[in-house]
């Protein structure tokens, strides 16, 4: 089972869009795929029309009072299941803090479904927290969407340091540009100037396209409702790049 996490300290950079679309593409290939919506805002859960409610809440999952299997929901797409968000996930840091091996608990929970899935995506909330530390330990690849702006590069540096400083196994960090607008000079300059020696940066750039914003309206991944669109082809390209990691 391979675990990808879409993660960034900043919000609104395309984490959920990436998680939803790449999870859909993995499932379309025939990989048994799980998407865990860890963000209490529940955007990924909303896209898949699943109710943002987990019996027992985040506390029930983290303390293992409720098995993870009981919370899983099939999406409308073959091979793709969702572990929905719950508003109680806003307290997940506190729940994790009360457990033994508090930075490993999410990984331990995923171990219980390792026979059921080939690929897992974690859609993370924007923060540096105990949840983030858990995500680092649980994932094999950290997918970091970046808006092409100077501050984004600073954020990537912080994130790279955070990963490097963490104990134990560390995921591979793969950054990529998201919501890019090549008409803007600054975007072009940042994309060209980003240092690629310390962190792997994917060649694929996800452009800022209105069709990606339509996901919330259509409540489906882009390749499902607009399979021949440019956005769908960009996500396919990105998936082809990162799945081999």
């Amino acid at each position, binding site marked *: 089972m391979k675990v990808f996490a879409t993660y960034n300290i900043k919000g609104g950079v395309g984490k959920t869009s990436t998680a939803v679309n790449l999870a859909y593409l993995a499932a379309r290939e025939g990989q048994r795929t799980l998407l865990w919506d860890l963000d209490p805002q529940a955007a990924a859960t909303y896209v*898949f029309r699943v109710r943002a409610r987990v019996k027992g809440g985040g506390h029930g999952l983290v303390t293992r009072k409720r098995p993870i299997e009981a919370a899983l929901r099939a999406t409308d797409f073959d091979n793709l299941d969702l572990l929905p968000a719950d508003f109680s996930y806003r307290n997940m840091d506190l729940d994790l803090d009360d457990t033994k091996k508090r930075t490993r608990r999410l990984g331990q929970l995923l171990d219980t479904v390792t026979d059921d899935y080939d690929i897992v995506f974690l859609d993370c909330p924007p923060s540096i927290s105990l949840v983030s530390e858990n995500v680092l330990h649980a994932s094999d690849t950290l997918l970091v969407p970046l808006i092409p702006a100077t501050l984004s590069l600073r954020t990537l540096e912080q994130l790279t340091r955070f990963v490097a400083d963490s104990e134990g196994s560390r995921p591979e960090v793969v950054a990529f540009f998201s919501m890019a607008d090549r008409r803007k000079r600054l975007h072009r300059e940042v994309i060209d100037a980003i240092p690629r020696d310390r962190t792997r940066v994917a060649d694929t750039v996800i452009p800022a396209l209105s069709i990606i914003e339509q996901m919330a309206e259509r409540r489906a991944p882009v390749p499902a409702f607009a399979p021949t669109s440019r956005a769908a082809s960009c996500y396919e390209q990105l998936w082809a790049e990162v799945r081999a990691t």
Partner: protein
Amino acid sequence: MTSPPRALQAADEGQLELEAIVAALSARYVVAAGVRQRIRRVQVDTFDRRLRAAGLTLEHQSTASGERLVLGRPDGSSAAAVPVADLRWPAPADLLPGPVRDVVAAVSGIRALMVASDERRRVRQLELLNEDGKTVARVELDEPASEAGAPARLTVRTLRGYEEQAQRAVRILAGLGLRPVESTDDRAPSSSKPTAGTDRESPATVLLTRALSEFLATMRANLPGLLDDVDTEFLHDFRVSVRRTRATLKLGRHCLPEAMRTRWEPDFKWLGDLTTPVRDLDVYELDLPTMRSWLVAADPADLEPLATHLRSRRTVERRALVRGLRSARYRRLVTEWQDELDGLTDTQEEADREHLSSGRLADRGIAKAYRRVARGGAAITGDSPAGDLHLLRKRCKELRYALEVCAPVLAKGPRNRAVADLKGLQDVLGRFQDSEVQRQALRGFAEEMMADGTSARAVLAMGELIGHLDAEQDRARREFDGAFALFARPSSQQLMHRLGGGR
């Protein structure tokens, strides 16, 4: 874990009325009906139904919009659907797309995947949606594309986390008078082990005829796959049936007509000999990956010329095999052998022959075969030539076949233990003899390859293999005394006594 899909059909196996189904389900759900489309469903499995035995199903679906492979897992819910193109059957599992390949190859092993059933249907998918527009269950209306097809059926598919919705849909459909479809078992004949159902007092000819008929059925069942070269197991199973036939004819010499010895024993020897060269080459090809791992000084790639040589030799030998199996002689053999078996139990000649019960045949046959193994094994010394061990291996096979053919009249427990005891000795003798034969064959291949101008590296690598086989043969020879002592130990002898072998 979710429950597997539930299939329902009309009580009279007649047509299903879509309007009535949609109306009933609409009382509880928003029903989104897809367009009716033609679908070709090809169920794929190995010839011996390994996927089915493992609880897996593999279906190749073709519609106007594309093709996909659908893998059903034992829990029924976690099916994987993968788009495919240009997939033709039979095919080895290695050719399947990644996620399906990993699961299927682990189960299918050496066997190729082939068509188990092929149906053209018309399907219509109904999505049952809740108030959020989320699909909570799927219902598939599946009708035959022609009158000859299986009756129309409805399949309710459970979605993970929405199990109660599928149950509710089934209850609604049951209210329309639909009933569950009974599953059918279409296991193919692949094993040539005789089935039970004969008692000790019945004439021995009944026991023998039943066994011989089953061997013939296995030969016939494996012939198409053998001729098409689907996988190497078709030839292997065919040969096993021929060997068992020959051993059974030998076992029944006392009570079978004279023609068995004068005509059929030589005919089946011909058939066995016809199939030997290709099987030997199959074994080398199958063993090549293991042989590569034996190399210490040489590079595994150095064996590539050997692999090429084996393939080209096999092509030539297979041509001769196929010619033989398509010949008038083979066709006559099978037809007349069937006639012979049909007439075996009801001829006057049978009444004139020595009357022997099945139980007595088993006692005599096992006793004789056991004595020959016991004597042959005791006579083996450190100076015995390899030929003596080869002869003993043949005697062991005769005892093994006697235990298998007579299985219907033997107590199951003691028979299984006797086979297990014998197996240990057979394994050692098999390793000894295989090493001997393979060493000689490799020398022969090396000479042929050198005549064709092969590289020195290939010959040196083959030399290493011969060295390894030599050491393996020595190891097996050293283990022989222990294996024979175990076979001949008092408890094993008592077991044979109970089975008739000590009489």
